[in-house]
C-alpha cells in the first residue's frame, strides 16, 4: 500500500473510533491511491467535465453569433442582438411556451400521482409491491421510440385528435414512473415513526402529514420535479409520435432545421439552462441548510 506521508493507517486513526462521527469519506481523499494516481485521476476528471460542458459552452457562445446565413452553426461575428430579442422567432417562441406549458402541466399531474405511488411503495408492505416496482421501471426502460409508437397506435386507433392533450398524456406517463422511482429512492430512508410521533402528540393524520411528512419528503419531490422538468422539456422522440399538429420546442427546432437554425434557439436554450441551474443551486443550498440527518 502506497500511502501519502503523514497519514496514519486508519486502524491507528482515533477519529474513526469516535462514535457519531461520519465514517465514510471524511478522510477518504487520502485513501484513493498514490499521489500520482490521484493527480492523473483529477486531470482525467477535469477532462470529463470539459467534455460534458463543451457543447453547452458552444451553445452559449453561439448566442452571441451573428450568422451570415440561416444556420447558426459557424462563427461569423459577435453581436448581442440575439439577447436583445430572444423572442424574435414567433414560431420558435410559441413552441417554447407550449413546451413550458406541457412541462408544467404534465409534471404537476405526474408529481402527485408519482409521489403517491412512491409513498405507497416506501411506506407499506403489501402483496404485489414487487410486481408494481418492476411495472414502474418498464416505461423507463422501454425505448422511447416504442413508447411513442405504441401511444401513436393507441390514439390513432381510438380516433383521438393528436395535440396538446396527447403530448401531456405521454409526458405524464413517463414522468409518473420517473417521479415514483426517484421519490421512492429518497423516501426509502424515511422514518415513518415520525408520523406516529406526531399523531401521538395530538396531531391529526392530515396535520402530521402537512407538518412532518411533507416537509421531510419535499426535497425528494423537488428533485424529482426538477429532473422530470428536464425530461419533459427535452423530450423529442415520444413527443414526435404524439404531437399531431402541435409542436414543442425541440420538435420545432428539429423541423425548422430543414430550413433554418436561428441563434434564438441557443438563447432560449441558454435561458432554460440558467434558470434550471439557479433552481438546482437554490434547492441544494436550501436542503444543505435544512439538512435533516
Amino acid at each position, binding site marked *: 500500500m502506497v500511502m501519502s506521508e503523514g497519514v496514519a493507517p486508519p486502524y491507528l486513526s482515533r477519529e474513526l473510533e469516535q462514535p457519531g462521527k461520519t465514517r465514510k469519506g471524511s478522510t477518504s481523499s487520502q485513501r484513493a491511491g498514490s499521489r500520482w494516481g490521484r493527480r492523473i485521476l483529477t486531470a482525467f476528471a477535469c477532462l470529463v467535465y470539459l467534455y460534458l460542458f463543451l457543447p453547452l459552452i458552444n451553445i452559449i457562445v453561439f448566442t452571441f453569433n451573428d450568422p451570415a446565413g*440561416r444556420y447558426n452553426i459557424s462563427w461569423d461575428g459577435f453581436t448581442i442582438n440575439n439577447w436583445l430579442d430572444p423572442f424574435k422567432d414567433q414560431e420558435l417562441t410559441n413552441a417554447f*411556451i407550449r413546451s413550458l406549458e406541457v412541462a408544467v402541466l404534465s409534471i404537476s399531474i405526474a408529481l402527485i400521482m408519482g409521489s403517491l405511488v412512491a409513498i405507497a411503495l416506501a411506506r407499506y408492505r403489501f402483496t404485489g409491491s414487487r410486481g408494481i416496482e418492476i411495472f414502474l421501471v418498464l416505461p423507463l426502460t422501454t425505448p422511447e421510440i416504442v413508447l411513442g409508437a405504441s401511444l401513436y397506435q393507441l390514439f390513432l386507433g381510438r380516433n383521438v385528435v393528436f395535440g396538446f*392533450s396527447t403530448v401531456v398524456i405521454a409526458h405524464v406517463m413517463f414522468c409518473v414512473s420517473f417521479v415514483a422511482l426517484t421519490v421512492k429512492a429518497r423516501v426509502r430512508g424515511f422514518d415513518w415513526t415520525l408520523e406516529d410521533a406526531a399523531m401521538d402528540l395530538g396531531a391529526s393524520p392530515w396535520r402530521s402529514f402537512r407538518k412532518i411528512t411533507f416537509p421531510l419528503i419535499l426535497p425528494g419531490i423537488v428533485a424529482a420535479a426538477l429532473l422530470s422538468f428536464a425530461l419533459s422539456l427535452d423530450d423529442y422522440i415520444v413527443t414526435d409520435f404524439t404531437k399531431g399538429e402541435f409542436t414543442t420546442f425541440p420538435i420545432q427546432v428539429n423541423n425548422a432545421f430543414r430550413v433554418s437554425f436561428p441563434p434564438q434557439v441557443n438563447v432560449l436554450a441558454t435561458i432554460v439552462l440558467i434558470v434550471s441551474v439557479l433552481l438546482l443551486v437554490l434547492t441544494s443550498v436550501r436542503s444543505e441548510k435544512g439538512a435533516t440527518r
Partner: protein
Amino acid sequence: MTKRRISTPSPTSQADLSRRKFLGTSGLALGGLALGPALLAACSSDSSGGDASSGDNELWFDNWTLYIDKPEGELYGKGGTLASFEEASGQKIKYTEGINDNNEYFAKIQPLLSQDKPIGPDIIALTFWMAGRLTTLGWVEKLPLDKIPNSANLIESLTKPPSDPTGEYSLPWQAGMAGIAYNKSVTGRALNSVDDLFDPAFKGKIGMLLEMRDTIGLIAMSLGIDLATPTFEKFQPAFDKLKEGVDSGQIRQFTGNDYVDDLEQGSFAACIGWSGDVVQLSASNPDIGFSIPESGGTLWFDTMQIPVGASNVEGAAEWMNYVYDPVNAAKITAEVQYISPVQGVQEELRKMGGDAAALADSQLIFPDASTLATLQSWGNLDEEEEALFDAEFAKITGA
C-alpha cells in the same frame, strides 16, 4: 420540398407580447392540473391541437417558411402581399409557416383528415406529388374555379399537371428547379453533370436531398430514364446507382434545406440543390455555383389546396385570385425568387425597376426555352408504386 430564400432575420420585437402570453398560459396550465383526469375525456373531443381552427371569417394559409414577401421584415408589414390583400378584400388572413417537409406535414394531418376532421388551415401549400396524394385520398375540396378568374393567367403546363389531371384540386404557388449545387473552392471547377457527383475525388463530400423525387429524378435522367411515366421497375437502375454511392461512402448525407450550410462550410463539395436557395447563396459567396445537369433537372412546383372541412373556402378563392394577378405575383417573386406560375410577372418586375428588374433576366427564375427543354416533371405515381419508391429510398437513406 424545402426551398426558401435566404434572408437575414428582421428585428421585430414580440418579446413583450410573448411574455404576457406566457404568463397567461402558464397560469392556465396550472389550473388545468385540477382537470388532470379530465384530459382523458377531453382529448377525444378536442377540436385540434395547438391553435386550431381559424376564427370567424378569418382565412388561414399554412405555408413553408420564408415563402412570401416580407416588407421591412414583417410578414404583415405595410405594402406586403398579406397586408395589401387584407386591405383589398376586407378578408382577415392568418398566415403560418408550419410546413417544413411534405412527409412530416402529411404525418401531422393524416390522422385528422382520415377521420374527416378539419385540420385548421384553409389553404395548404404542399408539393405537387403530395398534393396529388391528398387529391387521390379525397382529402381536399374541389376548388371554386369560377371564383378564381385570374387562374387564366397561369402558365398552361402548371394548370393540369399529372398530379391533378383535371386541374380542379390544386393550383400552383411557386415552382422551381433541382440541379447541382457546388462549392468551387472545394471542387476546383464548375460541375454540370450528375456523374460529377459520383466522382471519387469528392468521396464523402456529396450531399443528396431527402426529397426523393429530386434526388432519384436527377439520377434517373442521367441514366436516360424518363420521369413522365415512372414505374418502380424502370427506376431500379437509379436506385442502384444511388445505393452504390451510399455504400461506397461517396454520399455523405441526405438533407433538407440544411445542405446550404454544409455547402457553404465545405462539408459538401457538391450536392443536389434547389435553384432559389443557390441564387441567394451565390450572391454572398461567389464560390457557390448552380447548374442544371446536361441530362436535365427536375421542375417541381408547390400547390395551393383547400383541405376538406376548411371553414373559409370563399376567402381561399379570393386569396388565390389575388395572388394570380401578375402585379401581386411579381411582388412575391421579387422576394422569394422562385419561378412564378403566373404569366406576365417578368414584365411586372421590369416595371418595378431596381433589383427586381434585374431578376427579370435571371435564367433560374425565367428559364428560357432551351433550359426548359431539359427540365422534366414527375408523372403521377399510384399508391402502390409510391410505397415501393418510398420504401426503397428509405432503405438507401438509412431509414
